[in-house]
């Protein structure tokens, strides 16, 4: 069908007006689209852990930035200890539940909770609330205490951790989300995102006998997490990592650090805890591997108060 000359001119006029308006006022008419890049690191403070995560992940553009429909997601919290969650030794179960819910909303096919525990797993997952968090959120808890599920991989560019038996889900999953709890550690100074990955290997004793700090720094060469969420709500300031009720002091810092950059997350976590990142050897070693950015000033940081 042919078009009349008048109709053609009318349409051209509309397009010109619309384009001009759109170019002159970028927020107008394209309200859903962010024209600036997502932040490198988001720091949230002042709310409950699950609420803080909602605000934090929204600043990245939602969980769908990290999880595509049909993905297999492995969430690695700290659920290693057979203690109540109020002891500050394990990740807040409400936070874990919330993260799982976000993954499910992003249409992940399967969400797993994975941790090779120090305490007896069956007892721990009931006491520290992770069984309930998994059931409520829609995740599957993986029993990681059988060597059958671990496979040896070569880590070419590692300095000490040249080969390691790692859980097969780490190698197979589409997305790895690292959810540590920030706390004092008797020998590593603090434990945060980098140290939390130790729960993905079969043989912890290798780390302890081959240079703990260097092995912690080497591991992300096997697989770096796609996202790190540091739970700094209830922070153990002494007596870590297990804590005891008389040698431990907890501080309610009510903070959370979210970043795909594991080095930046731990630098921020160290400063949050109150220690210079220079005094935590494994952070610098990880930066030396090129696993992330050490200088926070060069990063785009969004700070949110709930």
């Amino acid at each position, binding site marked *: 069908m042919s078009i009349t000359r008048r109709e053609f001119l009318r349409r051209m006029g509309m397009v010109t007006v619309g384009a001009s308006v759109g170019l002159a006022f970028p927020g107008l008419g394209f309200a859903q689209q962010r024209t600036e890049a997502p932040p490198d690191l988001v720091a949230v403070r002042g709310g409950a852990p699950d609420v803080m995560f909602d605000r934090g992940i929204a600043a990245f553009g939602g969980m769908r930035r990290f999880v595509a429909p049909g993905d297999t997601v492995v969430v690695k919290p700290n659920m290693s200890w*057979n203690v109540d969650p109020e002891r500050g030794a394990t990740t807040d179960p409400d936070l874990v539940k919330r993260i799982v819910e976000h993954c499910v909303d992003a249409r992940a096919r399967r969400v797993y909770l994975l941790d090779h525990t120090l305490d007896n*797993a069956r*007892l721990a997952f009931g006491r520290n609330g992770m069984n309930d968090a998994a059931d409520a959120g829609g995740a599957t808890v993986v*029993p990681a205490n059988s060597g059958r599920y671990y496979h040896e991989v070569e880590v070419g560019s590692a300095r000490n951790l040249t080969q390691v038996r790692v859980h097969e889900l780490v190698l197979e999953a589409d997305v790895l989300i690292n959810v540590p709890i920030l706390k004092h550690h008797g020998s590593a100074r603090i434990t945060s995102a980098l140290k939390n990955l130790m729960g993905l290997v079969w043989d*912890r*004793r290798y780390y302890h006998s081959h240079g703990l700090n260097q092995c912690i720094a080497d591991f992300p060469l096997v697989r770096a997490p796609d996202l790190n969420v540091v739970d700094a709500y209830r922070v153990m300031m002494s007596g870590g990592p297990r804590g*005891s009720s008389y*040698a431990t002091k907890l501080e309610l810092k009510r903070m959370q650090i979210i970043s795909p950059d594991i080095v930046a997350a731990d630098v*921020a976590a160290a400063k949050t805890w109150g220690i210079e990142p220079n005094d935590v050897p494994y952070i610098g070693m990880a930066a030396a591997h090129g696993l992330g950015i050490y200088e926070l000033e060069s990063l785009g940081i969004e700070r949110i108060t709930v």
Partner: protein
Amino acid sequence: MRIHPLKVARVVVSVLVLALLLVAFLLPSASVSWTAVGARVQFLPALITMVLAGGGLSGIAWVVILVVTALVGRVYCSSLCPLGTVQDLLIRGVRGRSGYGYRRRMVARPSPLLGARVIAVVSIVLLAIGAPILVNVLGPYRVFGMLAKDFAVPLVALLSHGAYFVLRPLGIFVAPLVVPVDGVLFVVAFAAAGGLVTLSAVGGRLFCNALCPVGGVLSLPASRSIVRVAIDEDRCIRCGACEHICKAGCIDSDAKSVDSARCVACFNCLSVCPVDAIHYRYARDGENRRSDAAGSGRGLTRRRFLGRLGSSTLAVFPVSFLIRRRTGRVDGTPSGARLRPASPPGSRSVERFTSLCVSCHLCVTRCPTQVLQPSLAEYGLRGIMQPTMDYAVGFCEYECNECSTVCPTGAISPISLEEKQQTQIGQAHFIRERCVVVTNGTACGACAEVCPTHAVYMVPYEGHLTIPETDMDVCVGCGNCEFACPVEPEKAIVVSGNEIHRPRVVKETDGVPEIVDPEPTEEFPF
């Protein structure tokens, strides 16, 4: 031919008790530990519980069994004893429905009941003086426990690992049964199983009448029981069908008599008589009883008995002693004192534990962290096979008291979780010159990480390094530290058992540690 209802009843009961015990031994979940009730109705464990362990009425089973036996014969042997049921299954497997053709053989070579009675007396005397060694070798519940734990459990573990291949492609993750495979114990159990199969094939319930200490004890009241299997001499035509089917070799059809001292009350004979001449009924004293004088004074029998006793004990002793199973256990602490074995929490002292334990290994199979392992030489010769804490294999979980809830003899007395957490069964000794921090100059702290009572903690050393320090007052001897230590072959921190368990100093408060809630601020630390 109909099956006699008594036989049906004893089959149902025996299968039920066996199933309960198998569940207790094979399924790791704590929620099925009530099935250990199958262990509480066993004769020797109950005897030990009541008479030696001060367990009171929880050990009443042996009294009940004795009374019942005096009234109605050795029904324990065919309905409650798990080894009896195992033998019945073996007999059925080996012999099918055919009997034993005992007709001539029994008269010529009767089973040496005297042997079992001697063993029974010796076992009980040794038990009374604190050396349950014969009970640990020949006690039927203990033998069953050994077969279950060293034989059946590894097989089940193998199957559960096989399940991995089936379930993994379906995306299902399972926790396979993880069992430290002990070659020596498996071989011993295999030999014992082989011995049992042989005995069953050759002579049915031969173990029960030749070797079993419980059989020896129960044969005494059973020989005069008021109700027993008896033959109506008027009706019997001496066809020998009952003698043929008898598992215990207690029927002499020529003499038309049944020896109730040997009869294990399986009731198989009640169904096979073509003229309905054999019944389970009241029998007057003197009627239908065969003297068991035969069996003593016959050189052939005594030699055979000694040979069997010798071969079964031989299978256990030298093999176990010659092979040192564990590596990594240090022979001395820094002060030069020898490392002592630790007995499980609830046992109160090593002396008490080794005098009461029958080595059934129910605690070993139920321990969720597998720290309880059968000993070889740790408790000395008389304590062989009795469980001890092996910190190379596992550690004692702080929030668990499972072993004390299942022990059928009271060797591990029931203890509340709180009491267990305040009991010191051993002390950890730090050996500084072996520590990774000292030898390699790198950070470690594996021991302090896992200590549940803050008995091991890190203090500043050099530069950014920290090194362990110990506070023995609060140590419970759980061995978490020793298990976690990465130094091989001799660990840098080792636990030595306390001869007598003692309360530890409790420094922690109940509940949550001190919490600081700072003023809310808009400031971010970076």
